């Protein structure tokens, strides 16, 4: 008999008379000791199903159907009995460990509470147990860290603390809701290893929610794929990865494979495609004088209240040639975005300089970007919602570069804006919309359109696809590639996602803690990493070994 089975679950949200249905009749089950992966893009209803089943949704959510846990229907239990099951029999691990930990309470107290919520334990005994738990989830020096607050922990340690909470009372089931999504790849790999180890040690069943089929490929016994609140396909993992039946699953899998496969597929260096050929030529031309050159960039901040300053960049140099896409990769905190901001002229380096076509335009002491250079280097940000002014229409946003930098008449500007919209493959109808009325992909297209409006030489794209669903990611990557071909623009493409970089870029710069550890052609770097850090990065990519 299944440990936990959900039958025909429906969740609707109602507020002030309007309702939205998030989950429409979902069923799945997990056996003791097994791992079930729930996969789907954001908005597919996977998290809502689980939270709805365990009574963790806000009161205005209405849950129908049944969720049997060891024979008891959780949707019908009294709040008190439900509470007795949560924590003791079902443990939870959530996505963003920072927001899921109480900011004002110590880690130790929060883990301890998982115990005291269900058992009476003396102070000393409790502390002992918490220390053991911390040790079990791999926190080094638990004695010293137990009284720390969440902000003093790194992302991975926080997630370990969350896991410690979940396993505190040795539950039969752990529900892990995107537990690694907010983490760097290397950390993600270690957390996945931890979960697997704990599961094996305690014989716990695991429901693992993810948007990434690749991630779950290493861990899942069964996979349920969801879309728009419905299950589109459910199958044992091996079966599903080998022969996805549903078109949506195929698309998901294809997208995942797309990125990762390219890295591995040994691409003969000599078999050049037409685009690459021209690149190569321009690249050769630029050997002597690259389009953009970052020389020995150094960046340090004085942090308030601290004596020593924080060094973000140390001696970073790289070139960007005409019509080239260079990837800048590294984990969070490696200094990728700082470089992007310096190249875009939004920040001053402490030392070193950036030059465009041999002309230095950003060096210590420069107050503002020279006006003549401004249209030449543009930027696209990660968060497509934040990078568009929420109070201005698409038309106004796209007209801005022309209004500010040219003397074109209004009619001409309008024509150019319409052309821009067409160029990024958006319908003309978006012109009068506000960013909030666009999808994430549309917003990012608008942001890109704004960046290329004045046909700049260089566009800095700072994690432009990280916030997007995998299908949208693919489209945006294609758009960037096409724009490069049509406009001849060079891109500095910043990403933590090695797959996307491998897919898009000619060359790659690998950063670790503000230093360049390795740079060179993508296939060379990824196929034959020379730096141990690059190797570790590549090894952490999930699904490499397994099915994908």
């Amino acid at each position, binding site marked *: 008999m299944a440990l936990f089975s959900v039958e025909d679950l429906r969740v609707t949200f109602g507020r002030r008379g309007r309702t939205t249905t998030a989950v429409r009749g979902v069923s799945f089950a997990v056996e003791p000791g097994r791992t079930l992966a729930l996969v789907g893009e954001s908005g597919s209803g996977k998290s809502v199903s689980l939270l709805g089943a365990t009574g*963790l949704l806000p009161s205005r959510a209405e849950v129908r159907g049944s969720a049997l846990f060891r024979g008891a229907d959780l949707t019908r239990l009294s709040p008190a009995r439900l509470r007795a099951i949560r924590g003791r029999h079902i443990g939870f691990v959530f996505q963003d460990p920072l*927001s899921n*930990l109480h*900011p004002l309470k110590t880690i130790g107290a929060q883990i301890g509470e998982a115990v005291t*919520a269900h058992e009476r334990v003396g102070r000393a005994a409790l502390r002992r147990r918490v220390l053991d738990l911390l040790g079990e989830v791999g926190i080094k020096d638990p004695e010293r860290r137990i009284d720390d607050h969440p902000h003093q922990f790194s992302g991975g340690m926080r997630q370990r603390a969350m896991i410690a909470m979940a396993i505190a009372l040795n539950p039969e089931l752990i529900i892990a809701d995107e537990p690694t999504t907010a983490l760097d790849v290397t950390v993600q790999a270690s957390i996945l290893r931890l979960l697997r180890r704990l599961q094996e040690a305690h014989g716990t069943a695991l429901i693992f929610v993810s948007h990434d089929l690749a991630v779950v490929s290493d861990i899942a016994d069964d996979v349920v794929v969801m879309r728009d609140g419905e299950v589109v396909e459910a199958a044992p993992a091996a079966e599903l990865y080998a022969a996805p039946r549903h078109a949506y699953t195929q698309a998901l899998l294809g997208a995942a494979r797309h990125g990762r496969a390219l890295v591995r597929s040994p691409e003969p260096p000599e078999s050049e495609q037409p685009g690459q050929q021209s690149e190569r030529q321009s690249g050769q031309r630029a050997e002597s004088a690259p389009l953009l050159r970052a020389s020995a960039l150094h960046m340090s901040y004085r942090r308030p*209240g601290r004596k020593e300053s924080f060094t973000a960049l140390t001696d970073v140099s790289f070139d960007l040639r005409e019509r080239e896409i260079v990837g800048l990769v590294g984990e969070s905190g490696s200094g990728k975005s700082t470089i992007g901001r310096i190249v875009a002229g939004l920040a001053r380096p402490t030392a070193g300089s950036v030059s465009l076509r041999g002309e230095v335009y950003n060096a210590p002491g420069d107050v503002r970007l020279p006006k003549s250079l401004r249209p030449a280097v543009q930027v696209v940000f990660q968060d497509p919602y934040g990078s568009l002014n929420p109070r201005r229409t698409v038309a106004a946003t796209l007209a801005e570069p022309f209004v500010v930098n040219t003397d074109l008449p209004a009619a001409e500007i309008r024509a150019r804006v319409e052309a821009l919209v067409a160029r990024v493959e958006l319908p003309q109808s978006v012109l009068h919309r506000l960013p909030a009325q666009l999808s994430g992909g549309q917003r990012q297209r608008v942001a890109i359109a704004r960046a290329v409006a004045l046909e700049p030489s260089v566009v800095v794209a700072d994690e432009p696809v990280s916030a997007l669903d995998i299908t949208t990611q693919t489209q945006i990557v294609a758009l960037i590639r096409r724009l490069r071909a049509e406009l001849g623009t060079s891109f500095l493409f910043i990403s933590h996602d090695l797959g996307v970089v491998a897919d898009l870029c000619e060359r790659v710069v690998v950063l670790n803690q503000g230093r360049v550890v390795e740079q060179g052609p993508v296939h060379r770097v990824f196929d034959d990493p020379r730096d141990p850090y690059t190797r570790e990065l590549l090894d952490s990519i999930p699904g490499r070994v397994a099915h994908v």
Partner: protein
Amino acid sequence: MRRHIAGHAARALATLLAVLVITFAMTRVAYRNPAAVLAPRNATQETLDGITRALRLDEPWYLQLWHYLYRGPDIQGAPMGLFNWPPALGYSFRQQRPVTELILSKIPVTLSLALGALVIWMTLSILFGVAAARRPDSWVDRILSALSYAGLSVPTFLTGILLSYFLYFTLSTYGIRWFPSSGYVGITENPFEWARHLALPWLTIAVAEIGIFQRVVRANMLDVLGSDYIRTARAKGVTERRVHFGHALSAALNPIITLGGLELAALMGGAIVTEQIFGLDGVGRLAVEAAVGGDFPVVIGTTILAAAIFVVSTFAVDVVTRLRDPAAR
């Protein structure tokens, strides 16, 4: 943190200094012919001139300011400036007492009024606010929200008049003397009488403040209750009461402390209407009578006091909220 405190303290001092100079300048312009206002009735021109000289009103303003700070008016040869030790705020000619002494004698009243009201309104606001946030849009929430609007929309003077009329006058005509109509008894003299005399004033202030704070507590609680770590607590199986008071309230408290500190400071600077209606001999009544009566040394003194209380409580609130926030510590 230490650097932050030092910076904040410097800013507080600059604020006070600016307040002092502005107030001083303002009273110099506002109270025309202060000698005539302060002099006995029918004083002769000689007397007026004498007072003018004693107050140094015939000197340029910067000298006047300097004297105010450095010596104050010399009464019986004793300097009474802010830069003397002990610092003093000058001398009230109308009341014929040093301003510092006057203010100090009123502070216990205002302090009792403000702190007592604070305890009442904070307790009730938190209870009401948590109850309302627990089930948004339920009938409890709606009733509490209606009450809060009512409290917010009635001016204190009207509350005071009505409370005094019904709870003092009407009751006492039936021989029920629970509440006195006015006055103050020191807490050291008789704690029960102290509370009895302050009950209606506390209520008057609390009604208005609960109107504001209940909503602030509710909004912040709702905000926090929607956050991920509350869901985490529930996922751990923590009881609802602990979720609300242990987790949510502690996280929602900082903005409440901040606003509470500011309100308390404002009240300490003079719960003017309440003191006026209930005949409490506090700083607010002193300040109003001085402003109306042209007793400008007292006006300057009370203004600086209010500003100092404001600055200090902003400072204290800042320290407390930072101490509560481990990330800012």
